[in-house]
């Protein structure tokens, strides 16, 4: 990696999208730019705030050929895709994309998110890297835009200028990487996703597939850079989407893409204001009803009408006898519910309304 010092002196930076490419919807451009900046804020103390008027630290524009006071020029389709200037006043931090290119979100053409993330590396003080796996490599490489694009080389480079995350939000004390066969393993959330089951913990996720035994262990950000860490609940709804919850927000994901316009407030689902977070969620696909666990209470949501059922919340200990007062995580598999509390797991038959097995949380990992 290479960098120019001193970088931005302030860590709370502003950006403004001066104009939009006609190749994509405004919302998709906004999302690509926001995600391109988020790639860097995730590994530094930097924060980015969007402004819509006046001068921002990072002025973003789509331009062609010779443009305004910019000392560099564009060259028509292909060739040069964009450029940006290192931190500083005036032109410093400004980022230009060549409007003669075909900009795209996930199809043919050049992925705006990937090019923007690269150019923002320059706007923050990085120069090109000769590491071919680095985002700051000069040539365009069409990576999977759903995977987190920074290599260790990029992270080392940007942290040479700004340091890593502030201590306050650095990883919690103790082991930073959870171990699948830790006998005291607990989960933040569990959900099915088509033919997979995903077990969330901190910054990581384990994935298993219904019909094969091996377990994959990844960073959540490698699939969904936009999702926060330490999520609190997740479930798969009957429309092939998963909903992920943290505090009073939730994100909706289809496949490996976080849908635009999320996060939304959990209160849009019908929770009263006093509910501040969800502990666990599971959808009974046979009834198309979703159970939300909030402390000692359980709410039921009708997926067809998208409304909370009347007569809820009910006390967990009465509605699901035997699983105790609270639930950390839950999912449905082959008609059974699996409830997780601490390092225990309960297999529950919703038809017989009783527990059929008690196990350790990590029985799914072939320990």
């Amino acid at each position, binding site marked *: 990696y290479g960098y120019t010092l001193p970088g931005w002196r302030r860590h709370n930076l502003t950006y403004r999208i001066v104009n939009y490419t006609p190749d994509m919807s405004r919302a998709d451009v906004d999302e690509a730019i926001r995600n391109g900046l988020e790639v860097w804020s995730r590994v530094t103390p930097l924060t980015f705030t969007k402004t819509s008027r006046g001068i921002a630290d990072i002025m973003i524009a789509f331009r062609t050929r010779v443009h305004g006071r910019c000392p560099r020029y564009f060259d028509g389709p*292909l060739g040069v895709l964009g450029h940006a200037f*290192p931190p500083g006043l005036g032109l410093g931090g400004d980022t230009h994309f060549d409007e003669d290119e075909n900009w795209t979100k996930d199809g043919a053409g050049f992925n705006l998110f990937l090019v923007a993330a690269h150019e923002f590396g*320059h706007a923050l003080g990085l*120069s090109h890297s*000769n590491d071919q796996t680095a985002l700051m490599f000069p040539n365009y490489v069409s990576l999977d835009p759903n995977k987190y694009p920074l290599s260790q080389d990029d992270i080392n480079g940007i942290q040479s200028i700004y340091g890593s995350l502030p201590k306050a939000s650095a990883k919690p004390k103790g082991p930073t990487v959870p171990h699948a066969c830790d006998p005291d393993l607990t989960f933040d959330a569990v959900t099915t996703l088509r033919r997979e089951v995903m077990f969330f913990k901190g910054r990581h996720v384990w994935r298993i597939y219904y019909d094969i035994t091996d377990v994959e262990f990844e960073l959540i950000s490698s699939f969904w850079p936009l999702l926060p860490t330490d999520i609190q609940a997740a479930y798969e709804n009957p429309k092939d989407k998963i909903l992920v919850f943290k505090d009073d927000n939730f994100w909706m994901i289809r496949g490996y893409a976080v849908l635009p316009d999320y996060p939304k407030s959990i209160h849009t689902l019908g929770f009263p204001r006093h509910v501040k977070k969800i502990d666990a969620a599971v959808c009974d696909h046979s009834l198309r009803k979703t159970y939300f666990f909030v402390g000692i209470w359980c709410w039921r949501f009708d997926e067809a009408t998208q409304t909370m059922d009347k007569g809820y919340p009910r006390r967990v200990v009465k509605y699901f006898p035997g699983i105790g007062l609270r639930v950390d995580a839950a999912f449905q598999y082959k008609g059974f519910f699996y409830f997780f509390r601490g390092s225990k797991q309960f297999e529950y038959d919703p038809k017989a309304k009783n527990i059929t097995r008690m196990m350790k949380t990590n029985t799914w990992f072939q320990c």
Partner: protein
Amino acid sequence: FPTARKMDPEETMHLAQAYLNQFYSLEIEGSHLVQSKNRTLIDGKIREMQAFFGLAVTGQLDSNTLAIMTTPRCGVPDVGQ
């Protein structure tokens, strides 16, 4: 940049010089040199670019070097911003 269609040597050299001007500050460093010295400078810049991209450092415009020069990329110079 022209696509990968067959280019004649003069065109190839023209493309390479435009690339080296833009990303390896050839023009800035070479503007005052006489022709013979300029040729040496161009070879040196080709070597510099080949080393950056992990290519065989020959100073010659071989096909791998041209392939890199015609790949869509960022407009920020690789050396000496």
